[in-house]
């Protein structure tokens, strides 16, 4: 991939991924979660900070650990892993805030050329319909699915 990313871990079903952000604010554990939504074959991607001591997650906190590009590249990488195991699924993502949604958009834009080799990438417009992702457009959320379904991890 074009951007460096953190090494991450997962569990047997590849629904939960963990990695550690390292920067000026120290080491911060991140969790990425894929959860089935009420629409068939769509999983919601969510991620946030995990406070191990408090055993609590936070998807609204802005950590400012100086590594947002690397974090987003890592999250994108988990999409490869998750859809490698579940190639017929769609993955939806939206931010908990507008700022976070723009951050997701940045992550997709930064990795778009590579993503498009393996995924169909869509943005949810303001009327909640989807269009093929266009760099620079504002979206409410994002949806991807594998082009090649014949992959298994």
């Amino acid at each position, binding site marked *: 991939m074009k951007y460096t990313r953190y090494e991450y871990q997962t569990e047997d079903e590849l629904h939960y991924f963990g990695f550690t952000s390292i920067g000026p604010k120290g080491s911060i554990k991140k969790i990425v979660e894929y959860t089935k939504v009420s629409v068939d074959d769509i999983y919601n991607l969510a991620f946030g900070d995990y406070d191990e001591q408090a055993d609590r997650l936070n998807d609204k906190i802005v950590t400012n650990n100086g590594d947002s590009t690397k974090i987003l590249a890592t999250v994108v990488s988990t999409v490869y892993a998750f859809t490698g195991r579940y190639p017929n699924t769609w993955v939806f993502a939206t931010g908990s805030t507008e700022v976070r949604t723009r951050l997701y958009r940045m992550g997709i834009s930064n990795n778009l050329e590579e993503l498009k080799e393996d995924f*169909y990438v869509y943005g949810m417009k303001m009327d909640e319909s989807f269009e093929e992702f266009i760099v620079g457009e504002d979206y409410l959320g994002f949806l991807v699915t594998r082009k090649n379904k014949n992959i298994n991890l």
Partner: protein
Amino acid sequence: MKVDELNKAKVPIVKIDKRLERFRGKVLFPEKLALANKMLANTRLPKIPASK
């Protein structure tokens, strides 16, 4: 695995961490899931181009 190797691998090499299994079956970000359900309730999946 070294970062260089990791970055070159398009299909990631997945490492299992049994500690993450304690999350299984739990919704860690329920607000996000509720938001996604709401946003997707009345939408249609895009049609995948037939020629590709």
